[in-house]
């Protein structure tokens, strides 16, 4: 199950973009998810992300993310009405609680909790997609140009993460071959076995770190300015996606300035669709954002497009 959490090269179209393109695209999605309050916009973002996750064959992973997201969403929906007093439509008048005053539950507060939760799902999905689309080595290589030691540490640590999961698996295998049964015996003994496993893993990881450091040092690591090796080409698909992202961002900001995409919850909620403008901006922004998926479709079904992008 853990293998699914990190990047795997499946040779898909959506994995063939330049890492910079993907990062910018995802960044635009992230910023939009923070800028938009409008439930409709957030729902569309979630739909877009679902399509992308499907395109990267990551539905199983996404489900895991969704589960966490839904739990957190529920918590928000419960806590929010209890602490927020700004809503006008009271649907339930609660008792007076010391310190807090009267517990009034308003429809707006519940709704706000719901939308906050939706945003949360979108943010989680974006990072899920990141794991599916971007090879961490390459992404971090992009940052390596500016890198201080911290960036390197983050890079190394993200790299070590899958290694560690593999190590754990190997060590467990060896221990089982040497007669340790992790699932047998009373709880005390089982805990002891797992503690043993933990010790080995910690020890070998630390040992590994010294060896990696040694190997890095021996290969001139830190000997002055560093360049970055890149065999990536910026292909038409990258230019199109980059353009799409920028245009989407531009359209979104312009829309927000016109009042499309914002949403007021308190004291009374806005209408879901306030005017034609809301829908028009929505369609424009998402047309741009759908560019990589459209390219993917063309790549799959049309020889001509395939040869051109």
């Amino acid at each position, binding site marked *: 199950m853990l293998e699914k959490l990190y990047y795997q090269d499946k040779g898909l179209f959506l994995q063939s973009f330049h890492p910079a393109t993907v990062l910018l695209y995802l960044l635009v999605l992230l910023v939009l998810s923070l800028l938009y309050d409008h439930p409709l916009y957030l729902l569309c973002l979630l739909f877009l992300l679902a399509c992308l996750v499907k395109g990267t064959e990551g539905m199983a992973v996404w489900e895991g993310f969704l589960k966490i997201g839904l739990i957190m969403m529920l918590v928000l929906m419960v806590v929010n009405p209890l602490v927020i007093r700004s809503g006008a439509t009271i649907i339930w008048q609660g008792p007076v609680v010391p310190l807090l005053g009267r517990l009034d539950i308003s429809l707006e507060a519940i709704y706000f909790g719901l939308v906050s939760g939706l945003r949360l799902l979108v943010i989680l999905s974006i990072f899920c997609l990141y794991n599916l689309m971007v090879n961490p080595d*390459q992404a971090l290589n992009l940052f390596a140009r500016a890198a201080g030691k911290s960036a390197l540490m983050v890079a190394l640590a993200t790299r070590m993460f899958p290694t560690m999961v593999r190590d754990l698996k190997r060590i467990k295998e060896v221990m089982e*071959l*040497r007669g340790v049964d992790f699932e047998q015996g009373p709880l005390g003994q089982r805990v002891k076995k797992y503690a*043993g496993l933990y010790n080995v893993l910690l020890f070998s990881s630390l040992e590994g770190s010294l060896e990696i450091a*040694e190997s890095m040092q021996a290969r001139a690591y830190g*000997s002055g300015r*560093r360049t970055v090796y890149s065999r990536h080409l910026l292909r038409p698909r990258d230019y199109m996606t980059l353009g799409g992202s920028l245009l989407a961002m531009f359209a979104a900001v312009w829309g927000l300035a016109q009042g499309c995409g914002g949403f007021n919850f308190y004291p009374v909620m806005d209408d879901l669709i306030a005017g034609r403008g809301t829908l028009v901006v929505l369609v424009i922004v998402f047309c741009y954002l759908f560019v990589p998926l459209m390219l993917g479709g063309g790549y799959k079904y049309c020889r001509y497009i395939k040869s051109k992008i």
Partner: protein
Amino acid sequence: MPLYKIENLTYYYPDTTTAALEDINLEIEAGEFILVVGGSGSGKSSLARALAGLIPDFYGGRIGGKTYFQGDEIRTQDRRKLARQVGMVFQDPEKQIVQTQVEAEIAFGLENLGLTNEEMLRRVAEVTCFMGLTPIRGGFTANLSGGQKQKLALAAVLAMQPHVLVLDEPTSQLDPAAAEEILNLVKRLNEEMGFTVIMIEQRLERCYHLADRVLLMAGGKIICDGSARAVAGHTIAGGQPFLPPVTRLFAGLQATSIPLTVKEGRKLLRTRLNTKDGGEERHIVKTASNPGATPIRAACCSSSPHFAGTNRGNVVRLKNLWFTYPDGTEVLEGVNLAVDEGEFVAVLGENGAGKSTMLRQLAGLLQPDRGTVEIFGRDVGKKGYREIRRQVAYLSQNPNDYLFQDTVEEELLFTLENFHMSDTTIVDKMLARFNLARYRRTNPRDLSSGERQRVALASVLVTSPGLIILDEPTRGIDYRLKAELGRFLQQQAAAGRTVILVTHDVEFAAEYAARVVMMFSGRVVSDGSKHDVLGKSVFYAPQLGKMCRGLYDGILTLQEAQQHIYPLFAGPTDRDEILEVSL
């Protein structure tokens, strides 16, 4: 000015009382090709680390004496400048890979040197192509086979083109052909480009003659330093085994000067044969010299009688085994193999052929996609290793996974306890057997690579298992211990236990195994007694086999050679003749 000048270098690892390096005095000139030989734990790797300027910074401990590189003391020298000039390949390929992707790994050092992208592309392309890494260029480093990792580690350093190459057993996991190629490359770099090479090697048959100078180490000291021939003479006089087989054979004839290469040996042998028999070819009878060997069958064809189903004695039976890793690499393609009780089988084959994968199937760690694996007549299906692990000892290619107790002794006791075996006297026996008694209370992580390998071996063999499966147990082990291991395994086989091991060490396979299985790209391509398989092969032939080919066919091991060749040299006049030929 010498390139390196070491004065009275003494080094202790943290918390140790015996010095890993003791009073080393050494000068190395630019452009030399130096071979460092010595027993396991004699301080070879420590010396290499000192030359690369990594001791003591990465290990702590106490250090005394001075090391000069190009006239400046290495400790005070700009570390950056040093790293640009000295390239080091470490002993364990598992522990020196930094990046997740093969290509990124090769480029890592180049990036650190600040080269332009064009330059990097060129160098990466060159070295990838030369080292045969092109098919796995985009692969993940964690998924590579042991030998592929080693090639990658070497490629990453060679791409940087440092003028001083420090290579710590760079070919211990490579198949003979790849090793040959790489050693030739190193030699060429040394001769044509003037690179200084300091190489540590345990398998001397392929590099002894390449070196300008050989250092013999023991107990942290350099006990002999000179040309290959001089050191060989000294080694023979001291009764030590650090010699290529050909040299060892002729050393037994007590000549004052002896051949170092197959060519020299052949020349010598030919003169003898010509004078005595007029050049007629000779053979020894295979089965007679090797009565323990089983009859040979071509197990790769599925109609083989091995699989008739009546054969009850099979300890291991692989039937039409197919396996593909989750990422889609098809590794085993219809492997058939049957091994009887008491057999000693060595599996040879190129890097990435699927040998380790096959062993993992045998141990029940991987489930076959198609076909069956039967061990002791039991089908090793899902989680099957639980049933068989009591009778099966499995050592993987990476011995570090086996070391997790605080002391070497506990490591062995751990296995015994888990299987509820109370007889602990075997621990002493095993420790003595693998020459580990003095490390009884040492943390196994504080040992040299060869020592770790032996601890891991001992820890799986303490249960006296019926089936012994070992993945490259000979890597990093010196001649003496290899002989000890070989004899131990032969005894086990003679006692009715079954031994299957993977090795790239043809000499070892020829010397100790009875049956040899060759794998090539996921298939068994050759299977039979060692004389049949190794005798015919060009690359997979032991040194003595090569030497005797065409002159005295059928000879593989030192013992056979001694038995058949020594009589040729009998007689008082021969001493002069040997001298004459070899000089």
